């Protein structure tokens, strides 16, 4: 796959929520190996932008393209190349960490349990693989979602507040994960209140109120 086919274009996107004009013509370009850090006060549509980029939310105006084609046309291909982490951990509390990964990563690509365990180990929660998510702490849950992102082996990461609930070590781990992902030619769109400091240059995108 050429670098060009992994380019995300968000072009003049407008989203209305009732009477509110949440996104007012937001544009961004994300090439392979690049990261954009979406910043802004609460309620400026950061999460909305991420949902639009993922294809969950269709904008009233504007377009989102993957490799130059509208994401609606290349839906399956785009979703296979995409790892989305919402603000909620999106884990089933009755399933174990490993089962949670098996049933979400497994839908994207056929994956062996050993590989999922490895991802959990990389995220520092190998011990939580066989525990129901119910008994995990908020930080451990966040790490399980990090393992899910890793295991998806996606080209594009869309992360909504990924540093929430992580301890210092966890935050460093996530930074390393992002660095490694960019080094391998992946790209990322990150919504975060914290400063994101990486080896690669982080392009900021400020959403105003």
């Amino acid at each position, binding site marked *: 796959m050429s670098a060009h086919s992994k380019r995300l274009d968000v072009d003049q996107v407008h989203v209305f929520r009732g009477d509110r004009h949440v996104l007012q013509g937001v544009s961004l370009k994300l090439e392979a190996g690049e990261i954009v850090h979406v910043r802004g006060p609460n309620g400026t549509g950061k999460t909305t932008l991420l949902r639009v980029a993922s294809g969950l939310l*269709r904008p009233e105006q504007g377009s989102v393209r993957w490799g130059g084609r509208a994401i609606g046309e290349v839906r*399956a291909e785009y*979703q*296979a190349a995409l790892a*989305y982490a*919402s603000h909620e951990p999106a884990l089933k509390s009755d399933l174990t960490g490993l089962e949670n990964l098996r*049933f979400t990563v497994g839908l994207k690509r056929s994956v062996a349990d050993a590989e999922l365990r490895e991802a959990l180990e990389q995220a520092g929660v190998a011990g939580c693989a066989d525990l*129901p998510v119910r008994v995990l702490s908020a930080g451990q849950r966040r790490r399980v979602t990090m393992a899910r992102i890793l295991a998806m082996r996606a080209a594009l990461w869309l992360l909504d507040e990924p540093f929430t609930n992580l301890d210092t070590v966890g935050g460093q781990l996530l930074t390393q994960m992002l660095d490694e992902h960019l080094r391998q030619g992946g790209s990322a769109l990150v919504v975060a209140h914290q400063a994101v400091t990486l080896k690669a240059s982080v392009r900021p995108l400020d959403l105003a109120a």
Partner: protein
Amino acid sequence: MSIGTGAALSLLLRRELCLSFRRPDQLLQPLVFFLIVTTLFPLALSPELTLLREMSPGVLWVAALLASLLSMDGLFRGDAEDGTLEQLALSGQSLGVVVVAKTFAHWLVSGAALVLVSPLVATALAIPVEAFPIMMLSLALGTLTLSWLGAIGAGLTVGLRRGSVLLSLIVLPLAMPLLIFGANATDRAIGGESAAGALYFLAALCVFTSSLAPLAATAALRITLE
């Protein structure tokens, strides 16, 4: 390497069943409701066999209908609330596959389970053993149809905070033909007559909803996700 639709369907089905069996209380709730309602009726009415036999198809079907509806509200709600529905929607599989797997799994743990315990209930309601096969077949077709109808209602109401009342209002009128023809089939089987007409009608409804309801439920769910 993406996985095929068949593999995705089986994985999703396993996920649903796994989740159901981790919550035995929720799993057994409709079944217990069905058993309680149907066994209370003979106690409240009268133990007179002829009266009981006359009432039993109606009692059986009303109880089955309400028991299935009881668990319908949670079909998409849990996944929508904890954010896993978004993960499923972005999994690269079509949302339709997710809807089909979830609805079918719901039928397996509610409808099919209800069909399996129905002979027990039927004995309490003085339904003769000869009528069991027709009764079970009609219940199987009826509950499957109801699961599909319920999926549409659940998809429409999942975004609402108090959607369960609305869900009943949407689904119950659509379920009336099921109640009428289902009870009729059971009634005829008890009387030793041919129930073919009613069964064919139930089967037609089942095929109709199985083919169209996934489309409607998927469309409803997609609106909710936005």
